[in-house]
């Protein structure tokens, strides 16, 4: 393989695993609470900027800056639950879509006022270090992104499928009323879901910062790719989000290099629309009996 191809594949995997994290945040919320959260991208941006605040503006070392930013994102998830989810819960799909879009606008402009319109360049724990992989120089940060993303996904898997709280969350996702009758604190599970969404988007924001600039408008493009990823993977499927995210990341990088850099985003949406038309359930399909 040529050196350039290896570089493209690694950076595609890195960007793709960020999309996978965002897609997972989207799916977790949609599965557990039935809300399609169109403010997911803005949550990623907030995560990225919280790391800017802790890491650049407060000059904390990154080992402290990252956990502090993630803790703030967990709190943000709780605020989101209280301010946005509770009032919009059980409203028609369209109300929720427009409502979360509006919240996204509020968040984005609050970020603009807080952090200004000049982009930041967050540091990576690995600086500009490069690693030799099969004779190609690969940015160490890209490998770090892939490792952390998959660590997060692994932790999420263990949490959801191997712990008692995870079982309760799945019960709520399957049948809210039955879960309530079984004595599960449904509202507490909802809070937990939003906290997890905050952590997943926060991690995505922290990881993507050093790859791109931290820009207050970064949310929408990332969310759009994550939407495309989960459409391709399957709207409610966890492996689907991962495979879809990586496919989108790879096609973005390889498409930009070999087909057209101007149309790389158009390419992603073309694939997404084709999937919607030909196989709307995505690669991994959607469970039967979904809320429409």
């Amino acid at each position, binding site marked *: 393989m040529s050196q350039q191809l290896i570089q493209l594949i690694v950076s595609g995997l890195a960007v793709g695993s960020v999309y996978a994290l965002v897609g997972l945040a989207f799916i977790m919320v949609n599965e557990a609470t039935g809300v*399609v959260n169109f403010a997911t991208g803005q949550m990623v941006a907030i995560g990225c900027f919280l790391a800017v605040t802790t890491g650049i503006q407060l000059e904390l070392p990154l080992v402290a800056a990252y956990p502090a930013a993630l803790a703030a994102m967990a709190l943000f998830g709780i605020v989101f639950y209280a301010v*946005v989810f509770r*009032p*919009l819960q059980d*409203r028609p*799909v*369209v*109300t929720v*879509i*427009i*409502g979360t*879009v*509006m*919240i*996204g*606008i*509020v968040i*984005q*402009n*609050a970020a*603009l*006022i807080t952090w200004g319109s000049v982009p930041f360049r967050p540091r990576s724990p690995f600086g500009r270090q490069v690693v030799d992989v099969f004779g190609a120089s690969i940015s160490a940060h890209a490998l770090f992104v892939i490792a952390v993303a998959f660590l997060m996904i692994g932790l999420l898997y263990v949490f959801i499928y191997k712990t008692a709280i995870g079982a309760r969350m799945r019960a709520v996702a399957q049948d809210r009323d039955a879960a309530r009758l079984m004595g599960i604190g449904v509202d507490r599970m909802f809070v937990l879901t939003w906290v997890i969404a905050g952590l997943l988007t926060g991690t995505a924001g922290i990881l993507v910062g050093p790859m791109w600039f931290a820009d207050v408008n970064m949310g*929408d493009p990332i969310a*759009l790719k994550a*939407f*495309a990823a989960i*459409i391709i993977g399957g*709207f409610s499927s966890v492996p689907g989000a991962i495979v879809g995210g990586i496919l989108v990341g790879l096609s973005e990088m390889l498409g930009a290099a070999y087909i057209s850099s*101007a*149309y790389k*985003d*158009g390419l992603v*949406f*073309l694939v*997404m*629309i084709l999937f*919607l*038309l030909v196989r*709307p359930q995505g690669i991994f399909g959607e469970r039967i009996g979904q809320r*429409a």
Partner: protein
Amino acid sequence: MKPQRNRLALAAATLAFVLALVLPAFVSGYGIRILNLALISAIAVIGLNFAFGYAGLITLAQAGFVGCGAYLTAILSTALGLPPWLSIPAAVVGTTLISVTIGLPMLRLKGHYLALATLGFNVSFVIVATNWKSVMGGTDGISGIPSLTLAGWSAATDHRYYYVLWLALAAATWIAWRIRYSHIGLAMIAVRDDEIATGAASVGVTRIKVQAFALSAAYAGLAGALFAHMTNFVAPDDFALSHSIIYLAMLIIGGEGSILGAIAGAVIVTFMPELMRDLGQAYMIVFGGLMLLILIFLPKGLLSLAGMVGRRLRIAGR
């Protein structure tokens, strides 16, 4: 009670339209431009009301269709030298054809899937407009679009163009009104209320959805074409996804499923930034927050507030 209320609404609407005729005399240069933009948005939002308000289709592509209309008339009237009164109808027809082409496959999708697919269309439109430099001009857009001239009367100034837009909006409203109470309008509402039952009554559900989608795109195309001949210039930014969201916001603020609500919402939302100019950067925060409050507390829009007041008055008057 229903026909009586309709007559009341009709009287109020007619009065508003007549009052709007003398409005330019009291409005200065900048204000009339905003007013014109409000009228153009109103046409696009009346269109959106067919798809979203009547047929219940969540579409985030309206700004993309407005863009199709604007660019079609821009290309036809600059590169091909067509006069505007020919290029505008051509742009409307072209936009409608585009919407049918993408609507036929896309409208099989429902709910958030349709929202995402139409969102993808709108984003793709901007990508193409930004990168297809030879035809659509890229980020520079297309300039030198001629102003409207009819039989020697030029509508080059905003004050004059206002009357053109007023006429267009009045016609668009009247046609929308007729469609609303025709079998097509009733079928759309039936699809929204119960798709399965409507299908069972052997009404072609997909056909009705495509009709609603095409109507909404036709109105968007008209709005876009009228916009292009007012600003004499089009660029991708004016047709971005955020504008689709604003159109939807206008319809929800005014009251979905209502033609007058669509117009009221378009006017209110267009003037909102002017009224809140003192807020500066915080404006969009307040706007988003207000929208959320309306969604939560007035899900039927501001017009439902007027309806409630009206009912109170009638009860009090008895």
